[in-house]
């Protein structure tokens, strides 16, 4: 019979898929008479059980996404030429400086990052930065943090999330009944609904089926009854069947009118804009632009024109071109000031200026907002922002 020392060495080898029967038999023989080694074997059996864990397949959509990115990266970038060695001395201080900057940024940013799975039961109002988003919460809010997935779990209370565009992956808030997913935007979530203040938000059910796409100014609420399971395009109107009640979206200007006409008819500007919103919510700015351009050629009414221009501004934000987005929002606010899109654009402009560290311009934009929309949809937020950028005001 093998010794305990030999048995313990063999235990790990016995876990291997190609372990031979003789090794296993010798081990079993020893284990029958050695309780201490049995305990040890139990522990290693756990590790062996890792073989039974297979990660969930990525799925066809993920495969398509990866292939698309690989093709895009391969065709867009040529291999970088090798730098001449005589410049190597320049690289040393440059690398050191970069390392210093990265370290300082890292230490600053990660100090606030909660651990995976950490929970928060808020007794009073507060705020924090999480995964590239500024999150404000009300008393009684219960949150769970998943920084690796940029996800917040919300079981009760209310959070106001301001997501900075450009983070890795999508920011999500998961409630017991639905999921809110964004690229870069600001929105308010409760377990019963969502209100979008800026940008675009996608609402999914817990099976990740899309239920709605919300533009700035729109809100969506979950009825008390169970959610509908069938996939409903964001652009389609709410289903007519009574039970179960559909989630409500209000106001739903372009989205509600976004149905395509009968077969053979040219799609309306509103339906094309709805598709553009959908594409933008998916992060596909190229497709969004294409739909917007088609909408602009489809004789849009004033409201659709404003929505189209706002989407183009949003697209710049999603593409991480904030300065261009600022100009675009400014132009939408100037040109379409009488439409809800113009109001949204002005608010978004102020927000973005705050994020870009331009408080004076942001304050001017917010004061402009108050003057033009004294009963506006973002009144509360604008006042808060003015307090932030002009505390003495």
């Amino acid at each position, binding site marked *: 019979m093998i010794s305990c020392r030999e048995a313990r060495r063999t235990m*790990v080898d016995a*876990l*291997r*898929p190609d372990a031979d029967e003789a090794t296993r038999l010798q081990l079993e023989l020893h284990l*029958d*008479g*050695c*309780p201490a080694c*049995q305990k*040890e*074997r*139990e*522990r*290693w*059996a*756990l*590790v*062996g*059980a*890792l*073989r*039974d*864990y*297979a*990660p969930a*397949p*990525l799925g066809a959509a993920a*495969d398509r*996404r*990866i*292939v698309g*990115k*690989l*093709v895009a*990266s*391969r*065709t867009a970038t040529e*291999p970088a030429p090798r730098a001449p060695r005589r410049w190597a001395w320049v690289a040393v201080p440059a690398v050191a400086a970069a390392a210093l900057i990265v370290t300082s940024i890292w230490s600053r940013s*990660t*100090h*606030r*990052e*909660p*651990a995976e*799975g*950490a*929970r*928060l*039961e*808020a*007794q*009073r109002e*507060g705020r*924090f930065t*999480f995964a590239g988003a500024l999150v404000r919460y009300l008393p009684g809010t219960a949150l*769970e943090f998943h920084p*690796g*997935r940029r*996800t917040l779990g919300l079981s009760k209370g209310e959070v106001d999330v301001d997501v900075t565009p450009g983070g890795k*992956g999508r920011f999500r808030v998961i409630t017991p009944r639905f999921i809110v997913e964004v690229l870069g935007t600001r929105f308010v979530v409760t377990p019963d609904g969502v209100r979008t203040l800026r940008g675009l938000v996608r609402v999914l059910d817990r099976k990740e089926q899309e239920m709605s796409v919300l533009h700035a100014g729109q809100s969506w609420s979950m009825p008390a009854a169970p959610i509908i399971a069938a996939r409903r395009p964001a652009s389609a109107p709410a289903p007519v069947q009574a039970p179960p009640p559909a989630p409500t979206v209000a106001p739903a200007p372009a989205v509600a009118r976004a149905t395509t006409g009968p077969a053979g008819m040219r799609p309306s500007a509103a339906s094309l804009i709805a598709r553009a919103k959908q594409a933008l919510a998916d992060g596909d700015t190229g497709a969004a632009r294409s739909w917007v351009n088609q909408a602009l050629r489809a004789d849009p009414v004033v409201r659709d024109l404003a929505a189209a221009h706002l989407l183009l501004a949003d697209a710049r934000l999603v593409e991480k071109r904030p300065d261009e987005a600022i100009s675009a929002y400014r132009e939408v606010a100037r040109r379409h000031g009488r439409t809800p899109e113009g109001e949204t654009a002005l608010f978004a402009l102020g927000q973005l200026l705050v994020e870009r560290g331009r408080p004076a311009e942001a304050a001017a934009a917010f004061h402009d907002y108050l003057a033009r929309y004294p009963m506006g949809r973002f009144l509360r937020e604008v006042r808060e922002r003015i307090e932030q950028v002009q505390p003495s005001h």
Partner: protein
Amino acid sequence: MLLESPRPATSARPDDACVRGCLEGQPDAIERLYRSYGPTVHGLLGRLVGPTADLEDLVQTAFERALQKLHRFRGEASLGTWICGIAVHVAQHHLRAGRVRRHVPLELVPETGPLCVPHADEEQGIDNRRLARRLHALLDRVHPRKRIALLLYVIDGRSVEEIAALMNATRTATRSRMFFARRELRALIAGDPELSEWAKGMLPRAAGGAP
């Protein structure tokens, strides 16, 4: 499960034309490469880093790096083995970054309530995924190089020579890493009472004590 490693995947192995196509940036060649080795890389990364939402990103990163370095592929090993080597480096890099993150002090939250580790009582029974998550949480405390060497040996069933080649290390260094990983992991599991309970459920014969 693991053992559809790239080695036996000869039928689906992209040929030289595929490699040439990838080097020229042909989309169909890139897709063929991904379709041939994507599942292998995905499985390997999943086993090395454990359940994570970053898996898709990691697979993508592995293939991006493979495409960037494809001009260096000399055909000395099979293409699958070569890509797996890159995937191992991607996993190592990811785990190292995670290790740094985990050591960051936490400043958020204490104002309102204690932090607690979730998922401990979320589900009843032993579930592979949950066990994998738990074990990988322990493995997070083992150095990535040691962890990967041990998992490639025990779970992937690779030989010491193969692991050494995949990790760009000598055989002695690989054996040493496996030894220390085993020792550290053993201590970690022994110090986790919940895992000990799970272990009893997994080996009922042993749990009954010596005959």
